[in-house]
C-alpha cells in the first residue's frame, strides 16, 4: 500500500482533532488510520536525534585570547543574540564546555595552554578558529605566533580581522550544520578535498619551495 504525504491545510485543525479523538476511541480503521499515523509520527535514528540536540545546545568555553574576544562576547548580547540557537551558555570550566572558540592570535608560548584546555574538554568537542590570526597568523605572520591547525583540530575557520559578530554567528551555524550531519562541502566540493591540507616546502629547505610564499611579482595575479 502506497501512502503519500500531503501538506496539512491551515484550517484543518478541528478536523484533525476529531481524527485524533476517533483514533483514541478505536474508531479509526484501515487506510484512514494508516494515513493519520503517517502524518503524526516522525521516525529517525538515535544518532540523528542526539546530534540534533547537540547542535542546538552547545556550551562554549569562556576563553578569550585577543581582540576577537570582544566580538565573541558581543554575539551573546541583544543585537546578534546567539541564544536563539542555544549557544549562549559560556562555561567557565573546560570540563563543562564542548566548544572552544579561539578568539585571537595564539603565541607559541600560549599554544600548549590552549592545547591543554582543548584536551580537558569532554568529547564530543568542537573548535572554531575565529579570525585570521589563529587561522593563518594574519598580520602577525612571524616568529611569535602559531596557527591553530598546527596543534589542535579545528572544525570551522571564521575569516576576518576580527570577524564581525554576524560572521562568527555564520560560522557557528556552519558548525551546527556539521554537527547535525548535513554540512555543505563548500569549497571542498570544488577541490575534491577532505579536511585541511598543509602546504610546506621541502623538508631540508623549509619555506624555500613552499607554494604559498610570495615570490616577486606573483601577487599581481592574486
Amino acid at each position, binding site marked *: 500500500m502506497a501512502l503519500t504525504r500531503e501538506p496539512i491545510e491551515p484550517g484543518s485543525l478541528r478536523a484533525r482533532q476529531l481524527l485524533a479523538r476517533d483514533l483514541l476511541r478505536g474508531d479509526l480503521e484501515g487506510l484512514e488510520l494508516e494515513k493519520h499515523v503517517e502524518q503524526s509520527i516522525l521516525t529517525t535514528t538515535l544518532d540523528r536525534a542526539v546530534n540534533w540536540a547537540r547542535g542546538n545546545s552547545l556550551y562554549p568555553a569562556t576563553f578569550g585570547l585577543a581582540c576577537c574576544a570582544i566580538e565573541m562576547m558581543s554575539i551573546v548580547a541583544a543585537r546578534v543574540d546567539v541564544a536563539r540557537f542555544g549557544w549562549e551558555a559560556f562555561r567557565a570550566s573546560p570540563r563543562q564546555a564542548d566548544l572552544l572558540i579561539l578568539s585571537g592570535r595564539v603565541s*607559541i*608560548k600560549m599554544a600548549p595552554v590552549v592545547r591543554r584546555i582543548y584536551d580537558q574538554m569532554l568529547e564530543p568537542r568542537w573548535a572554531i578558529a575565529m579570525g585570521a590570526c589563529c587561522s*593563518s*597568523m594574519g598580520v602577525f*605572520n*612571524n*616568529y*611569535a*605566533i*602559531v*596557527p591553530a591547525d598546527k596543534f589542535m583540530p579545528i572544525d570551522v575557520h571564521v575569516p576576518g580581522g576580527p570577524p564581525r559578530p554576524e560572521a562568527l554567528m555564520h560560522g557557528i551555524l556552519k558548525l551546527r550544520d556539521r554537527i547535525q550531519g548535513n554540512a555543505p562541502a563548500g569549497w571542498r566540493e*570544488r*577541490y*575534491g*578535498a577532505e579536511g585541511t*591540507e598543509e*602546504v*610546506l*616546502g621541502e623538508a631540508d629547505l623549509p*619555506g624555500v619551495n*613552499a*607554494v*604559498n*610564499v610570495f615570490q616577486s611579482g*606573483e*601577487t599581481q*595575479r*592574486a
Partner: protein
Amino acid sequence: MPDATGLELIAQDLRAADADAVLGTSFFREEATIEVAPAFLRTAAETLHAKGYTFMASCHGVDYYPDEPRLGVHYQLLDMPNVDRVCLKTRVPIEAPNVPSLCGIWPGANHPEREVFDMLGVVFDEHPDLRRILMPEDYEGHPQRRDFPIGGEPVLFTYNEDKVPGWTR
C-alpha cells in the same frame, strides 16, 4: 630636558669621574643623549642617580645592523622634581654582548633588561635573574636581531593553489 649646555655639563661631570667614560653626546629635537662605554655604564649611572635622575623610565635594546658595534641599550632616566630627562646609551659588539646590569641602582630595570636579553641577546652581567621573559624557555635565538629570520607560516592564495598537490580543479 637639560638644554645643550646642561648636557655638556653633565658629560663633563661624567668625564671628571672617568676620563674615557663618555663616547659622545647628542642633543637632537630637545632630547639629550649621552653615549658611554659599556665598562663605565654603571659608574655613569651611579653619577646620574646621585645628580637626581632617580627614576629609570624605560630601557630598550637596539640592533644597529649593519653598523658596528651592533647592539645597543638605552636607558631613559628621569629627574622627577625637575622633570628633567636624559638618555643613557651604550653599544656593544655582537661577539661579546656584555653590559653591566643596572638592577642594583634601579630595581625596575630587572624586567626590561630581561626583555632586552630575550629579544636581542644582550647579556647583563650581575643581573639577579637573567632568564627569557617573553619567548618560551627553550626558544633558540634572539628574534629581534636584524639577521634573525622573520619566520611565519606560508599562506595559501588563489594564485598559488594550483601548485599544491591534491588541490587540482
